[in-house]
């Protein structure tokens, strides 16, 4: 085992740890938006680390795994952004302990008035 292969296995283990913590956050968080943020950030970083580590273990596969990691980094935040926007417009409000914590509500109402 060379040095690069050992570095690759270490990166794979770090990525899988982040991915597991992201899934655990999806299990434990209280409402849709916090679940969405832990799922997107942590799971995207974990998947990128895992795929990049496989590319370091097999040096001939490096460029194709790099392409997969770049596509994951582009496509996963796009879908999560569209999902957050859709669930806010559907009427799901964020989980707060105090009243009047929703800073986004007057902005969204004003922009919908301008569209009409």
């Amino acid at each position, binding site marked *: 085992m060379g040095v690069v292969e050992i570095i690759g296995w270490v990166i794979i283990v770090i990525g899988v740890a982040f991915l597991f913590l992201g899934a655990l956050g*999806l299990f434990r968080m209280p409402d849709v938006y916090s679940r969405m943020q832990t799922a997107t950030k942590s799971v995207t970083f974990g998947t990128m680390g895992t795929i990049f580590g496989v590319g370091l273990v097999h040096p001939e596969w490096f460029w194709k795994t790099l392409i997969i990691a770049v596509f994951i980094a582009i*496509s996963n935040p796009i879908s999560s952004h*569209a999902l957050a926007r*859709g669930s806010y417009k559907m009427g799901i409000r964020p989980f707060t302990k105090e009243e009047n914590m929703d800073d986004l509500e007057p902005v969204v109402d004003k922009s919908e008035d301008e569209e009409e």
Partner: protein
Amino acid sequence: MILYILIVLGLATFFVVHRGLKGPTPSDRIVALDNITTITTAGLVLLGLYFDRYIYIDVALIYGVLSFIGVLTLARYLEGGL
């Protein structure tokens, strides 16, 4: 080594499937589906490392490119657009 990593991925998939079966709103279940496809991409690359064939990485490439389109369509439907 790959065996222990796949066991951890299986535990992560168990949490995500539990959220997808239980989730109170439709958005929770769509987030669960998105995470299942992402975890599946990582698992397919690791299984390609186990079988040691270069061809098998292409399946993960197609997953990474195309898996967000279904979630994007469902999100646009929830918004009221499409």
